[in-house]
């Protein structure tokens, strides 16, 4: 079988496949999925979601259990969206004694009806650095948030959170505006700084929130005491809103969209690798069993029946619980069960092919067994297994996610099943956090649907008897 043959048969297959609308839809989704995997670095909103999915630091600026940003379209009071602001204006002033003052100004356009949860300033520093943060409101008032003196830094991140550090300064700001009565009723601890900073100043501001919309300026003053050894880099601020990202966040503040995108490649890998290897093994097994016949066939059939009469998922669960396999070992275990799927059909077809005259002719010409099997039988039988290859992809994905759902998944990667496991243990069902549960399962279902579309269409072409007449 040479290249032209393959090309011809592919063309023939394609002209049939083109007529199957559902097959084309499946193929289109598969192509999109593969494109997403290829362009993953560009699509991921959180670039290091793959490596740092379980890191606490990486996600700390998000808000926990935040609904997706687009839910704002359905609510009357608009919630602020989590934003990361990296554009700033920088001013430098020379002070006495070689000391420099660097001023970074960030602008935040506040348009929502609810207050953000937090405003966080980040900068990477080297050396000894005093930092002072203040916020200038649209009405001209300036609130000093915090002052810090970080010493002996070597490229660490300085994180200043308004919510943690601005309580006192916000309290004194309230004192200037609020009525005496209200002040007596409250204590400084019960204030949430962001509620005050984004509130219209005046009596009653402690108890009621009426947003003061407009442009807020966060001003960071950084003193460079020793310009030779001191350096600050990459300053940015994060305004944490109560809605976030395309698909919201979970209770560990992780961006779910990033997790789902990162999980796609694993779903494809698990599904395709498992089914491809197991179908190839199954085809070879069936052919060898049929070709040699007799005792070999009986022994191989016996092994086949033993494997075939084991329930896959329970065994998979127990193996995962005891050996804690990584993802590739898990794929290996699944292959050990999945290969039986195509054996019987291939075997019965191989029995027929074996008796064909051209096989006899090849044998008469002195062809070796391996040559007959690989040159004459495998190429004919492989295409028939493509349908079962496509149809066993979904079950591989579902089995992996079932194992992950029990908390037995590979902890070094992100899979959809693991996200569902986290949702289960985070009581997402009880709290009604639908954006945590709905998308991962939906994606598993869509992947299953895609391969079902492709597989059933192939099945129809390869086994014409099922066609509706």
């Amino acid at each position: 079988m040479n290249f032209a043959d393959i090309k011809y048969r592919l063309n023939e297959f394609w002209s049939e496949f083109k007529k199957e609308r559902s097959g084309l839809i499946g193929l289109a989704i598969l192509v999109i999925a593969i494109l997403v995997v290829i362009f993953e670095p560009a699509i991921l909103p959180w670039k290091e979601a793959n490596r740092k999915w379980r890191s606490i630091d990486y996600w700390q600026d998000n808000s926990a259990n935040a609904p997706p940003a687009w839910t704002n379209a359905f609510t009357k009071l608009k919630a602020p969206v989590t934003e990361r602001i990296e554009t700033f204006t920088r001013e430098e002033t020379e002070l006495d004694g070689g000391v420099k003052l660097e001023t970074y100004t960030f602008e935040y356009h506040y348009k929502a009806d609810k207050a953000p949860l937090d405003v966080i300033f980040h900068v990477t520093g080297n050396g000894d650095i005093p930092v002072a943060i203040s916020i200038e409101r649209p009405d001209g008032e300036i609130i000093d948030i915090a002052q810090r003196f970080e010493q002996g830094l070597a490229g660490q991140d300085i994180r200043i959170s308004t919510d943690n550090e601005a309580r006192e300064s916000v309290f004194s700001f309230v004192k200037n505006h609020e009525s005496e009565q209200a002040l007596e009723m409250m204590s400084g601890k019960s204030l949430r700084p962001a509620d005050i900073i984004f509130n219209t100043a005046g009596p009653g501001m402690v108890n009621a929130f009426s947003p003061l919309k407009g442009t807020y300026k966060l001003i960071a003053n950084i003193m460079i005491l020793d310009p030779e050894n001191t350096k600050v880099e990459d300053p940015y601020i994060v305004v944490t809103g109560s809605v976030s990202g395309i698909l919201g966040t979970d209770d560990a503040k992780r961006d779910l969209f990033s997790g789902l995108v990162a999980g796609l490649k694993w779903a494809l890998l698990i599904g395709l690798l498992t089914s491809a290897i197991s179908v190839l093994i199954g085809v070879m097994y069936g052919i060898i069993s049929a070709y040699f016949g007799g005792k070999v066939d009986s022994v191989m059939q016996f092994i086949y029946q033993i494997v075939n009469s084991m329930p896959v998922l329970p065994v998979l669960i127990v193996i995962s619980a005891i050996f804690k396999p990584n993802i590739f070992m898990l794929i290996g275990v699944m292959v050990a069960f999945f290969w039986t799927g195509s054996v019987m059909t291939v075997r019965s077809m191989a029995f027929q092919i074996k008796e064909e005259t051209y096989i006899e002719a090849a044998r008469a010409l002195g062809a070796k067994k391996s040559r007959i099997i690989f040159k004459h039988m495998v190429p004919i039988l492989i295409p028939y297994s493509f349908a079962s290859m496509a149809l066993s992809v979904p079950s591989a994905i579902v089995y992996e996610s079932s194992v992950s759902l029990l908390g037995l998944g590979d902890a070094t990667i992100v899979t959809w099943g693991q996200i569902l496991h986290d949702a289960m243990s985070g009581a997402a069902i009880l709290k009604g956090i639908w954006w945590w549960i709905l998308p991962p399962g939906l994606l598993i279902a869509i992947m299953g649907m895609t391969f079902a579309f492709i597989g059933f269409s192939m099945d129809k072409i390869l086994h014409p008897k099922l066609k509706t007449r």
Partner: protein
Amino acid sequence: MYKWFALKRVLKGIFTYAIIILIVSALFNTVNEQTTKSNIEDQIRAESMRLKNMQASQVQRFQQQRREELYRLYRLDRPLFERILFRTWNVLTLNFGKSTVLKSSRGDREVLAIVGEALPRSMLLFTVAAAIQIFVGIILGLKKAQKPGAPLDRTTSLITMIVYGMPTFWLAMILIMFFVYQLKIFPSAGMHSVPPPEGIMYYLDLLWHMALPLLTLLLIGFWGISFVVRNIVLSILQEDYIMAARARGIPENKVLFGHTLRTAAPPLLTISILSLLGSISGAIIFEGIFSWPGLGNLYWIAVQQNDIPVLMGDLAITVGLYQLGLIVLDLTYGFMDPRIKVGGKA
């Protein structure tokens, strides 16, 4: 002879089961022995606590002696192959030993009691679900095959493909979120209210708890069956004797349910039992979502509590159940299709 066919099949099933258990025992031998050894250590420690008026050296000697005795009892002093065979034999005689953490509802630590308690609950849920699924699936499949390519056939085939890879446990989560916490019409978990009501209310309460798990299994289950039924029936409907029956003026329903269904019975039975087995093999994990206290839920708990003996017992029973299903499948198949048993070489 059907008798010989049946006997042969049953013996073969038992033999297969024994081999599977042998493989499982060999695979998990190390972890099983670790559990046994730590159990023995616990027992020895408890026994030496009870000893009084003994010197340290005497206690040590006693412990050493006890350890040897118990190792001999559990055959831990024998060569590896014999230990594996011993364990296989234990499992085959349903001698699973004691659990490390879990207890049955009566406070029993016997693994057999714990698993035996869960078994009927799983059977109840899955057989009822399978029965309804098969019924709906066959009716729908017949309707589909009657007019292939019609709107009904095309839409239901589309849905079949859409739900093909949908995880049951996920649908369960969604339905719980909607029906239990939004509409508040079903209980969230378990099999009975606490405390369980008496008399007729007991069964109604059970039904009420079972409704949502059943609904979940149903929503996903019957599409696949109806699709297979359609394909089987469709090929039968193209046979000559069906055309002859129609030509004789036999009513369409009689052709469908009489002539077609009788011929289709063996393969239909196969897919019925296979779908029941499929739920043992695949949907069992979904019990954990509903806290339905069956075999699947036991996997969740045993994994969480790291209770190896219960995990092993659960696995042995699940595999046995699966094996039993396969035997029943072949026996009924042979009963309904005379060609099989005459061939004898099943």
